[in-house]
């Protein structure tokens, strides 16, 4: 499959809008997740208070991220874990590859890790001759299909049962069935063989506790538990923002994350791992390696607005609530982080010049902000990034092809501001508009039928390509009022 990029969101989205199969796959998303989330929220006394608390904990952590990170490292090392530092994705991949190679492993079992997806770890492993085996059902499905995840929590949400059934026939040789239990059992049987032979397991991390050096990983399937307890070596990839100060803080996040993500009070399993096993005879890995990865995160600390991005706990609630995501799905965003949170994280991770359309992939309706368990103001972030784009602080190059449009745009807004801020200029403006619009109005509106002139006026052309603009009324309300109704 051709991989879409963040640079071409507009095209990707248009193609997605015309994809009936994708809409079939996404049809359950809103009903299922949104309703379940609402029910789960109701099982907590003070949801709003919890959100406030979570955000305050995150803000406190981020403002002292250096301290908390070093404290986490000290305690994790004390418990027997080995810490690695990776400035970027390439470095993180190399650390993992070296660890795998030093242990003479030719395959690794992987539990779902968004950080791993972010740095394209699977491709890097394959290039070094190591076979990565995804074990989360959704991740395994998209690995079989050679695709990327389209949702943070449900990676294969873009695929229909029918497509998955065909994929299983092709890749596993089973007889065609759309029975989800049979498909799941097939995956279980195949992956158990891989678990039995694996020496190295790779996972992500949901929370790293500074106070104790503990890492916590949530899941529903059990593949993370298998990955982190059957293998001899466990490698955990952890973004530097995953640290939280105290063990007791988990209470807040374990209430928010499952309820927001899947509408559960708790997911089926939480593994709380503090270093290596303490007795040789115990089950569990002999070695635990934690790869602390920056990859563009520390940059986001430089402003309170962008810093919010690092509070994200990857629940996916903003994706489920987003009217844009619901229509175009995850792949259109051209990044492993789709939806509203992807639209703000991706430009900051890969550079805004490579993802200029993403901050505009939103109607600023605010549904994302409303559902976010850590109260990230995503609309504020989107506007901040849009401002960066129009101010020309983004893009890097001195000769900026968009500079002219930006000048025209800022001039237009200045005039607009002048016209609307005084009664006289406003009255003059509407009179002029009534006169001028005669050239383009057809049947009381300005639309596709308005002919050449509308098309030639750039803002009108762009607007009316998809919908009609209403014509200015012959008399304003104020005039009607003065004349007597």
């Amino acid at each position, binding site marked *: 499959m051709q991989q879409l990029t963040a640079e071409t969101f507009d095209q990707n989205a248009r193609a997605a809008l015309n994809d009936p199969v994708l809409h079939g796959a996404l049809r359950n998303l809103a009903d299922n997740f949104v309703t379940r989330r609402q029910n789960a929220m109701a099982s907590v006394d003070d949801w709003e208070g919890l959100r406030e608390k979570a955000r305050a904990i995150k803000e406190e952590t981020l403002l002292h991220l250096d301290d908390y990170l070093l404290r986490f490292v000290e305690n994790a090392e004390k418990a027997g874990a080995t810490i690695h530092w990776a400035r970027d994705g390439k470095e993180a991949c190399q650390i993992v590859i070296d660890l795998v190679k030093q242990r003479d492993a030719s395959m690794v079992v992987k539990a779902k890790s968004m950080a791993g997806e972010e740095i394209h770890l699977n491709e890097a492993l394959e290039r070094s001759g190591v076979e990565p085996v995804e074990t989360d*059902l959704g991740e395994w499905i998209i690995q079989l299909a050679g695709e990327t995840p389209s949702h943070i929590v449900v990676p294969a949400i873009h695929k229909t049962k029918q497509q998955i059934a065909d994929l299983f026939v092709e890749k596993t040789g089973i007889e065609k069935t759309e029975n989800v239990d049979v*498909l799941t059992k097939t995956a279980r049987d195949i992956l158990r063989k891989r678990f039995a032979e694996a020496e190295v397991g790779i996972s992500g991390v949901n929370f790293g506790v500074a106070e104790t050096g503990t890492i916590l990983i949530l899941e529903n399937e059990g593949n993370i*538990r298998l990955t982190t*307890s059957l293998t001899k070596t466990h490698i955990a990839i952890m973004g530097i923002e995953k640290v939280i100060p105290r063990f*007791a803080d988990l209470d807040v996040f374990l209430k928010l994350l499952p309820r927001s993500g899947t509408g559960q009070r*708790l997911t*089926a399993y*939480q593994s709380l791992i503090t270093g290596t*096993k303490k007795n040789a005879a115990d089950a569990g890995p002999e070695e635990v390696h934690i790869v602390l990865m920056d990859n563009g995160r520390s940059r986001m600390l430089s402003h309170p607005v962008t810093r919010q991005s690092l509070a994200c706990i990857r629940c996916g609630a903003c994706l489920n609530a987003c009217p844009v995501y619901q229509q175009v799905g995850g792949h259109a965003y051209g990044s492993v982080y789709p939806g509203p949170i992807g639209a703000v994280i991706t430009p900051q991770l890969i550079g805004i010049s490579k993802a200029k359309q993403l901050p505009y992939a939103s109607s600023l309706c605010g549904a994302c902000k409303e559902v976010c368990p850590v109260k990230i103001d995503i609309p504020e972030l989107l506007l901040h990034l849009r401002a960066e784009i129009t101010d020309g602080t983004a893009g890097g190059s001195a000769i900026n092809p968009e500079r002219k449009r930006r000048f025209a745009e800022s001039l237009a807004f200045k005039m607009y501001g002048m016209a609307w801020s005084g009664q006289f200029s406003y009255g003059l403006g509407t009179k002029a508009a009534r006169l001028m619009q005669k050239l383009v109005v057809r049947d009381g509106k300005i639309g596709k039928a308005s002919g050449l002139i509308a098309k030639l006026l750039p803002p009108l052309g762009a607007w009316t390509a998809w919908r009609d603009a209403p014509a200015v009324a012959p008399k304003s309300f104020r005039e009607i009022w003065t004349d007597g109704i």
Partner: protein
Amino acid sequence: MSTARADIIGSIRRNLSKSKPFDAVHAEHKHVESIANEACPAENVTAVRKLLHNFTASAEMLGIHIEIAADEVEATDLIASVVDRTGARKIAVSNSSSVSRLIETIETVEFTVDASTEFLFDSDLGITSAQWAIAETGTLVLEAESEDHRLISLVPPIHLCLLEASKIRQTLGEILELTGRNLEHTITFVTGASRTSDIELTLAIGVHGPGELQIIILADQ
């Protein structure tokens, strides 16, 4: 200090100091509550009977089978009946002393302690106990320090777990306070059977872990 470590910590500090002038302005517009090092308040210890009722209600909502045994003899009978019902032949048991005591008198079938990974992959049933439980979520808490249940509770298709009623607490916060005192060994929270909704958000049970979770609660000791 490795170079990468120094670079990352340096970058964090540099960027945070860049943010300082904006922070002051931002704080005027947005009230961000600062928090002290407050621990989560533990709720009043609810009576065992009420906790038992709450735990059972939460767990049954998740499709967990619960049986309550008045004493150890009854618990043994309940274990035997699970073995009968499931037709389990290859059974792995943990080194929990209460489990050993309860299965001692069951002679119809063999129980394997210290099972190898190979045995586990081929087994029909795993029997362990749990150290704690959370009533508000129907969660079992397994502390690897006390028992070798990390794989026995995970690999066999059915997990049978013993729980003493006195080990049930109402809230997650209370359990975090109890378990947070000693974190040397891995702790696992188990809430229901293994599940997935990865195919069209359709629920399927037993994807990688047990497809069935059965809990026997020992009411009074």
